[in-house]
């Protein structure tokens, strides 16, 4: 390849990436840097307009206030439970369905299309319908519970913290938001796992069957190792997305009934309390926590790019 041609390729490459890079820099990189700076400023929304370069300081007061705030550790725990339970449920449901739909049958294409609907549904439509399903006055879930399951009174699922079942407190609202998120996200896991299953060489399975392996043994020793990589990637992505999820929880419960996750707290600090410093500090803490599984994944798989 000639030098001129090589230089032109170099120049064209940078030129073509430039628009995307400019947008990402303006709307992601610069704001993120600003967020980190703001986390160390004691500043409220009204004062931020007057904030100049000269006023910048390094104060840990926001972090102290946020970490010592009432309910912070409960919210941190809720967030972790929510993210872990959602990830596990989403992967399990997606895997079960991908395996169940492996063998062709009449109408499989239709089933595949239908099960993807929760994933493409606008979140706000999904939460509105689910809230109606769970409504204590006219919702069918409570109607079924009272008519057939012997519930004494309707349960306002989205605001009830927990109910006693056989002497143990069972979280109600938190379970509901977890199930909602599993419902909304399992189609994506299903899609990726189906794609990966199709790429498993048929000889592997046939050989195992010839050797006398039972269906569960084939799954355990042949399919699962093949799926491990995709499962790890999906688990990482789902954990990251659930951990930071604001919209679904906010629209369903507004953080009531023991479902206040850290993302909802960020919103409360930002909009209700207009405490920019505290909201930014919470954001920085979230980013730091989310960096941990990402680094572990990149280290474990040994690839820096996907």
């Amino acid at each position, binding site marked *: 390849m000639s030098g001129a041609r090589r230089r032109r390729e*170099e*120049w*064209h*490459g*940078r030129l*073509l*990436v430039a*628009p*995307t*890079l400019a*947008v*990402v820099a303006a*709307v*992601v990189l610069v*704001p*993120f840097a*600003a*967020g980190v700076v*703001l986390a160390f400023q004691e500043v409220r*929304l009204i004062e*931020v307009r007057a904030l100049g370069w000269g006023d910048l300081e390094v104060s840990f007061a926001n972090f102290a206030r946020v970490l010592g705030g009432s309910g912070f550790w409960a919210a941190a725990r809720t967030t972790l439970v929510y993210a872990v339970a959602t990830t596990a449920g989403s992967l399990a449901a997606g895997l079960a*369905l991908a*395996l169940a739909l492996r063998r062709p049958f009449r109408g499989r294409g239709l089933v595949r*299309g*239908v*099960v*993807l*609907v*929760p994933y*493409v*549904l*606008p979140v*706000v*439509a*999904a*939460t*509105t*319908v689910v809230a*109606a*399903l769970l*409504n204590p006055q*006219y919702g069918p879930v*409570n*109607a079924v519970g009272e008519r057939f399951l012997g519930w004494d009174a309707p349960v306002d699922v989205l605001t009830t913290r927990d109910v006693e079942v056989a002497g143990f407190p069972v979280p109600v609202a938190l379970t509901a938001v977890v199930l909602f998120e599993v419902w909304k996200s399992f189609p994506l896991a299903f*899609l990726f*796992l189906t*794609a990966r299953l199709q*790429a498993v060489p048929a000889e592997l399975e046939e050989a195992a069957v010839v050797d006398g392996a*039972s*269906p569960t043994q084939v799954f355990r020793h042949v399919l699962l190792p093949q799926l491990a990589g995709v499962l790890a990637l999906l688990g990482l992505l789902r954990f990251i997305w659930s951990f*930071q999820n*604001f919209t679904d929880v906010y629209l369903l419960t507004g953080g009531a009934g023991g479902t206040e996750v850290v*993302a909802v707290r*960020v*919103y409360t600090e*930002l909009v209700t309390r207009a405490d920019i410093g505290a909201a930014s500090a919470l954001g920085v803490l*979230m*980013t730091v926590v*989310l960096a941990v599984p990402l680094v572990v994944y990149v280290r474990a798989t040994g690839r*820096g790019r996907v």
Partner: protein
Amino acid sequence: MRRRWDRHAVERRVLGVLRVAVVAGAVAAAAGPVLYGVVLSVRPFPDVAADPLGLPGPGSWDPSAYGRALAPEERGGFGLAGFMANSLVVAVATTLAAVACSVLGAYAAVRLRFFGRDAVNGLFLAVYLFPGIVLAVPLFVLFGRLGLTGSLPGLVLIYLAQTVPVALYMLRGYFQAVPVSVEEAAEVDGCSRRQVIVRVVLPMALPGLAATGLYVFMIAWNEFLFALLFLAPDRDRWTVALGVARLADFSVPAPVLMAGSVAVTVPVVAGFLLAQRLLVSGLTAGAEKG
């Protein structure tokens, strides 16, 4: 020998039952709530309150809730048609800009070697994973200072940044499927880089381009957080996500609320079902490699 065959037979029987149960359960879970929303939107509310589990009789379908949900406020409606127009503008603008940016970026990522290419690709992936709620705080402050809060172009800019990395990732897969030899032949025939992209690569990747555009459109149409932060005070600028959520806060009759939800769902689900095969192959392009 006998015991192993027993195990096989039992497993096959149990798994066969489980398979049917899983498929039936998944279909019911996926379609059930949507069907319930549709039914509720056409049932008169007194009937729903009297019998939550009933179905509307053949003669008692009442589609008037759709009219009330869509009609502008001056005519006693809830203005959803206006919100849909706003969302359409925002989503179409985002889609055009995101596809334009990502066509260029994806082509460079697939075909050109340049300094910092891997770093740039890694950066875009990181952006894809970056928590929206964390960016919301500084964006709220910065856009406030620039006077961009409450403006639809400001919102488009944010949606663009949030969707371009996924669009780029999807398009990369489609571009990789275009044979290099075709491009080289065009170059030999005297095409410039721009002509190669416009006349050779884009036509061959057109289905992928459509799928990517649809995906971006869906994200922009569905987005809620930034719409809430930026547009909440100005009802005339509400997008569908914000509009339906705000209606749910007021004591709007349930059938109207359901009609609104169904109305905002129809465009995305219809588009998705039309382009399903393309979208699925684009989204899962990386999965086969594990």
